[in-house]
């Protein structure tokens, strides 16, 4: 939604109360007497379902008095929409699909620790995968353990001298049906853990902030 008409400032900051997001808009449409039309910048953002947003930004110059201007705008929008439909799945989507495949492999008869991992742990893990698909965080690996768990590991970019990730987060789905998050810092040796009660997206956001952040969530 964009304010119109009377603003004199050349920038407008529109706050969306529902999301708290701030949107910066280009100048309010102004009558251009010389060209007999008006200029408007429109920022178009396409997203593909379940994938990392793919943003296509185009500034469309619409000449209100020009049929050619409208036609060119329609052409730009059409090409943009087609490109979004034909584009390969974003990396996030591919990674999430690979994760589903990895989970199926771990669940197959004869897989490592398979006999120790209860079905309920895999069911919890499937909910984690669904949440990962909707988030922008991809685990580095998913493993089963001799304790009957399915564990997703998320690693930060910062490395220790030995080449390990300094900060990591793991979501552990156990055979009691519980899902627990651990955040750990290998340099400070601090860690923090809590049980998730269905708030997976929130947990993923915290993990993402932690592994590549300042690590403040691992203390206290």
């Amino acid at each position, binding site marked *: 939604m964009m304010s119109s008409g009377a603003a004199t400032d050349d920038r407008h900051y529109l706050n969306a109360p529902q999301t708290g997001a701030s949107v910066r808009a280009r100048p309010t449409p102004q009558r251009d007497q010389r060209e007999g039309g008006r200029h408007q910048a429109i920022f178009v953002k396409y997203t593909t379902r379940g994938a990392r947003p793919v943003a296509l930004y185009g500034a469309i110059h619409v000449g209100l008095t020009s049929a050619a201007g409208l036609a060119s705008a329609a052409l730009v929008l059409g090409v943009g929409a087609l490109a979004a439909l034909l584009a390969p799945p974003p990396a996030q989507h591919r990674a999430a699909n690979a994760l589903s495949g990895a989970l199926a492999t771990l669940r197959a008869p004869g897989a*490592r620790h398979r006999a120790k991992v209860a079905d309920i742990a895999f069911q919890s893990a499937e909910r984690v995968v669904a949440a990962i698909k909707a988030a922008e965080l991809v685990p580095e*690996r998913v*493993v089963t*353990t*001799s*304790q009957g*768990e399915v*564990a997703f*590991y998320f*690693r930060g970019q910062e*490395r*220790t001298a*030995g*080449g*390990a*990730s300094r900060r*990591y987060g*793991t979501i*552990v789905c*156990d055979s*009691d049906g*519980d899902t*627990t998050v*651990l955040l*750990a810092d*290998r340099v400070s*040796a601090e*860690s*923090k*853990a*809590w*049980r998730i009660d269905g708030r997976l997206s929130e947990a993923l956001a915290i993990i993402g902030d932690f592994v590549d952040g300042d690590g403040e969530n691992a203390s206290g």
Partner: protein
Amino acid sequence: MRAVDEPIPTDEQLYRSIAEQDVDGEALDPTALDVPGTSVARSKYQPVPTQAIHPGDGGIAVIVPRDLPSPMVSSGGARYEFVASDDPLEDNDSHAEIRMNRPGKPYKSNHKVASKEFELQLRAALALRFRILIDPRNPKPAA
């Protein structure tokens, strides 16, 4: 089966068999370890570390008792200390365990730690103290 041989010297190497999935760089991930007891092989009775590798693993992480973490206390006040305990088995003379003991209480292999959250923190603290001796991704003993 040999008799229990305790205490385990503080500088005796204890070998933990690990797989590729357990390793991040030169560090061990916490889910590579078990609670309340993590099985290890005593170097006194298994001097060749490669022979402590379990089928399907490929690597060895090592720790000495003096490097075990300090005692930890859960948010509910339960105190746990890390202890290297000799635990020879019928088919494995070298077997020992790194146990998470509650002081003054007998160890039970089926003991459930105060909470899952705290259990993961215990495993993370212990994992930090291991070093990779034989990397399962490149199984040549480290220098």
